[in-house]
């Protein structure tokens, strides 16, 4: 290698090494002075990062012996359909009951059981959309829930108007398969709706 080039390469390498050392000193100094604060801010920012999971349809497999689903749908996905002939209602059923879901269809409270599991199931919808005719459901009406893993028929045995705080009137347990549908009540008028109209239906065993 010509001596000029050797000198140039040597000078460049020395300068780069010195610059890296200087850079390291600056970083170290910065870390000593504000390292904890920066780490806290970075942790906070990363905690606020929201990775929206892709909503896939999960194949629902029902275990007839155990009377339980082996696989459950993802929150926010549609898994069935509800039909009430007496009020001409046909609507999709989604797992979850947030505002976004209630715009799309009937929401299944994720803390309740699924059709066929032998426990109580809680569905909600808005009184100005899918459940606007719910107060016209009467005792004896049939409700059908259709899913990929089966079709379930329920017969209405009671309706009630409860306060929004009376959660004990929407019991979630595994004593009996009861389907409860509810919506805000009254349907009209201005202001906050402090009551709920509830329909109670029992599973019709085939």
């Amino acid at each position, binding site marked *: 290698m010509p*001596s*000029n080039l050797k*000198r*140039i390469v*040597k*000078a*460049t390498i020395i*300068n*780069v090494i*010195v*610059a*890296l050392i*200087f*850079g390291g*000193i*600056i*970083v170290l100094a910065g870390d000593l002075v504000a390292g904890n604060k920066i780490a806290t801010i*970075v942790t906070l*920012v*990363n905690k*606020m*990062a*929201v*990775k929206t999971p892709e909503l896939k349809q999960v194949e629902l497999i029902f275990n007839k012996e155990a009377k339980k689903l082996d696989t459950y749908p993802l929150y926010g996905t549609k898994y069935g359909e509800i039909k009430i002939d007496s009020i001409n209602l046909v609507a999709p059923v989604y797992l979850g009951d947030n*505002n*976004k879901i*209630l*715009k799309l269809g009937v929401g299944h409270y994720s803390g309740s059981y699924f059709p066929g599991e032998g426990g109580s199931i809680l569905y909600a919808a*808005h*009184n*100005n959309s899918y459940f606007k005719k719910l107060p016209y459901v009467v005792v004896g009406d049939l409700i059908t829930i259709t899913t990929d893993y089966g079709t379930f028929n329920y017969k209405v045995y009671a309706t009630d108007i409860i306060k929004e705080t009376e959660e004990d009137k929407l019991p979630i347990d595994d004593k009996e398969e009861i389907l409860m549908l509810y919506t*805000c009540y009254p349907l*009209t*008028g*201005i*202001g*906050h*709706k402090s009551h709920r109209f509830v329909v109670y239906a029992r599973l019709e065993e085939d």
Partner: protein
Amino acid sequence: MKKLVSYILAFILSVFLIVFIMLELVGNTVLKKEYVLDKIEEINYYEDMHQDLVTEIDDYVEQSGLDEFNIKEIFTEERIKEDVNSFIGWVYNENSLENIKSDLKLEIENKLEDSNISLTQEEKKEAEDAINNLVSNYATIVLYDAFVGLIRDIPKLIIIVNKLIVPAKIVIGVCIGIILGILLLLNKFKGFLKYLGVALLTLGIILVGIKIWFNLGVDLANLFILNKAISNLLRVILNDILKTLNFRGIISIFGGIVLTIISACQFRNN
């Protein structure tokens, strides 16, 4: 001894250069209202905010019965643009936000009156509560009202920083000039370029290093603060700053290497 002093001066020079670049960057980005407004236009901020607002109040308006009065017509994208610009103006100390909520409340109340739908006394009270909640929701989303305790001091901070930034840049500029002068005196032109090269290399390594560290350590792509609109705005501003830092860093590294090569060639000629 002369070499050691020169390297120390090169180190101090690189620190001053880093601070100068940061001050200049901050002064031309987040401290400038026009820059923030440009970025807001770039990312469809008003549209995203309008969508967020409509989603938030939609159910409330319908469930509370106010939809009969076509209240949703009041919440247009133009209104949001005007109010967001007022909010930005407040952050940069150009106006106050006092009338935004009261004007909105008055407009909603007028809408109810114009509808000629008669309400009972109880319904009037319910309507007033519903309107107050609606205005409060609007202010929380568009004006970040719920965080007024946290952001109240930002306008004052911006005034102070803006006042200090130019004198700080002048002082640092003078210090840089002094150091360059001392380096030139100590080394003549031979070594001056070499030590300046070291300073520029250090500057470049730090600037590029900041960008790399940020990309590796901070999940900027999925950042979510409060709502989609503000998250997008913060993301685009941070990306812009990082891009500028990276570009200046690469130029500095290139400049440092070029000066090092030239200084080495200078030695050869002597």
